């Protein structure tokens, strides 16, 4: 018999003692209480840090903004010319636009494209804090907060995607053409939080899908479906870009008919 089981065995002798229940209860409660107060102390500690941090974060964001964004969006984010006002767009908008590399734009010709982001996560957070401080707007989210894997429903997400998203982003989420050279980008390989923020804020030509029209959970389902489509293995072979019959026709003409005609030429040449 090892020592721990010996102690348990000794204690269990008292388990029928009349004070055993209350004692256990008190012991349990005090352990929980101590743990809770320690945790709470820790939280307040963090909160304190955040509050003081928040001011400096906004200040830092303002500085980045003045350097990198103000030339187009104006010194106070009031907007100018083609660049819209950012007052009230919220942290979600900044997180989407800057963390996906769309902002700052490389050239103003057509449409902000997804590219390698210029600012790192911390800088994006600072910028977002600054813009959010100007006027209330949708808050930025993190992938962890969304918990789409738990709350989403793939099948429902597919249905919602087909009703609300597929007309621009294609049935398989590969993106599609809009008018005058604009396009809806592919939704494959996009961070869940950016998908969510795009729906909430309606970047560029995309309309806004408010939480009242497309609920939070419905958005999570859409994300879950997109992530499923992204990770779906090739069930029937090469996906051919998943853009439908055009690439299929191309392959039938080139590889299919090409091979067959090649073989027909071999078949009808005289052997030597």
């Amino acid at each position: 018999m090892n020592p721990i089981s010996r102690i348990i065995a000794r204690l269990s002798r008292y388990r029928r003692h009349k004070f055993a229940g209350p004692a256990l209860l008190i012991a349990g409660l005090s352990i929980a209480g101590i743990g809770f107060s320690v945790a709470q102390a820790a939280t307040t500690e963090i909160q304190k840090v955040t509050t003081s941090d928040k001011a400096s974060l906004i200040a830092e964001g303002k500085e980045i903004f003045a350097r990198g964004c103000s030339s187009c969006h104006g010194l106070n984010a009031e907007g100018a010319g083609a660049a819209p006002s950012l007052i009230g767009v919220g942290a979600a908008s900044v997180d989407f636009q800057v963390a996906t590399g769309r902002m700052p734009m490389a050239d103003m010709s057509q449409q902000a494209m997804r590219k390698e982001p210029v600012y790192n996560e911390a800088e994006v957070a600072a910028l977002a804090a600054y813009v959010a401080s100007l006027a209330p707007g949708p808050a930025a989210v993190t992938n962890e907060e969304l918990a789409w894997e738990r709350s989403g429903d793939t099948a429902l997400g597919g249905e919602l995607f087909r009703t609300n998203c597929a007309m621009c982003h294609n049935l398989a989420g590969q993106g599609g053409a809009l008018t005058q050279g604009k396009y809806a980008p592919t939704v494959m390989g996009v961070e869940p939080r950016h998908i969510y923020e795009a729906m909430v804020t309606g970047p560029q030509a995309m309309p806004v899908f408010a939480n009242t029209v497309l609920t939070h959970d419905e958005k999570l389902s859409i994300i879950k479906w997109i992530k499923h489509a992204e990770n779906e293995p090739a069930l029937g072979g090469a996906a051919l870009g998943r853009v439908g019959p055009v690439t299929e026709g191309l392959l039938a003409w080139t590889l299919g008919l090409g091979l067959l005609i090649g073989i027909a030429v071999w078949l009808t040449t005289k052997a030597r």
Partner: protein
Amino acid sequence: MSARERLAGGTANFIDERTGAAKWMKKTLTKVFPDHWSFMLGEIVMYSFVILLLSGTFLTFWFDPSMKEVEYEGSYEPLSGVKMSAAYASTLNISFDVRGGLLMRQIHHWAALIFMAAMVIHMMRVFFTGAFRKPRELNWIIGVALLTLGIVEGFLGYSLPDDLLSGTGIRIAEAIIQAIPVVGSYLAYFVFGGAFPGEVFIQRIYTVHILLIPGIMLALITAHLMLVWYQKHTQYPGPGRTEKNVVGYPLMPVYMAKAGGFFFIVFGVTAFLGAVASINPIWIFGPYNPGQIGAGSQPDWYMGWLDGLVRLAPPIETHAFGYTISWNILIPGLIVPGIIFTLLAFYPFIEQWMTGDKREHHILDRPRNNPNRTAIGAMSLTFTLVALINGGNDLIATHFDLSINQIMWFSRIGIIILPPLAFVITKRICLSLQRADRELVLHGRETGRLVMLPHGEFIEVHEPLSPQKAYLLTHHEQNPPLALTNEDAQGVANPQGIKGRVRSRMSRAAQEQITKPTAKEVLEIEEGHH
């Protein structure tokens, strides 16, 4: 006599005593097949058809042609619990719960694409070489009928799974039916058994897809083959080949092995595509719902040019006396295709009318030796190609950083300007090639070797052509245009003046040629050389 010979003899005896077919069979087994790769194109079509029949039969064992609403409970999880038609659910079932089902679905669809592609290439071969000329005009018309049926059959086939992509196609077909003046809405209600989409069209197009159209096609293919058999193959020009003979290999054993082997090759290549390349992944598209749509919705390629025509049509509709005529649908959806297929079917007779040539032809033309026909072919292909490109304008826009509006305007203008341009350019190219042939026959092949003549001049050595090659380049006929007069001998104007003038103009265009070298010229040159 070996056992095998005895068995063969016995079999032949058994059949002949009951059918008297010995003579016919002997003739058949020694039938001559000219050896050229372009004669295998039609075989690709036929074999693809057989593959379609085989794989299609397999699919019918599980496919449920019903629009009854069911809740999906199969093994493809992302759709579990989704409401869909039984047709869509059973297609998912074939894809994921029947072993080899997805493979067969993909083979069936790839075979359909190759069937149509090979049909078009085969038709182009027949057109550009003039193989449709008398006595083969009927077979050409059967071919055009098969092409038309093939397009409809393919469209109905990919509509059967009732997915979101194909449902959109059906919606467009409904709009075309509905646009027919006077009876349109009635026809649409009859076809769909009421309002669109209704609950019957899948089972109706299923019957048409697996029974009616394949039956007609099978009959037409049989007639097509019997005519080829009976009229014997055409052959490419060359030494020893005349209008009275056909040179090639006998059916038994060479072509039995080659053609039979080719069937397996075509099937093998189709199966390979079915194994490695995904086609029509309907599980991604979702079930049909008229309130949903996907960007980049396209038909299969053989419908793509029709869709392209519809896209570039001008927005014209007539409203008069309380009635509506949708020219924007009727012109690109029915009128233009109708004109195109009619002209295509009657082209052999149109050419006969232009050239006045009503004789039999079994030796094929080299495309350059009939510049007018080749140019007409290039013109038609250009028209179709511009329409096809416009049919994929949204994908072209996103993949090549263009705007759909630009591509649409390019197509709208291009479809008017480019075909005539293609005609002129092709005709000039053909005439230049004729000129090059003439030079080749008269002056031989340039060897690139320079020699210095005794008096210091450098000349390039020209190698005379072999008699075989020279014959190949000069065997063709060159006819002067029709001598048509608009007045009779007494100077009275022909009442059919305009028709005559048109015909005379056409005939002159049809017979525009670079005069080929005559035997006399060749002889003179040869004597001069040596």
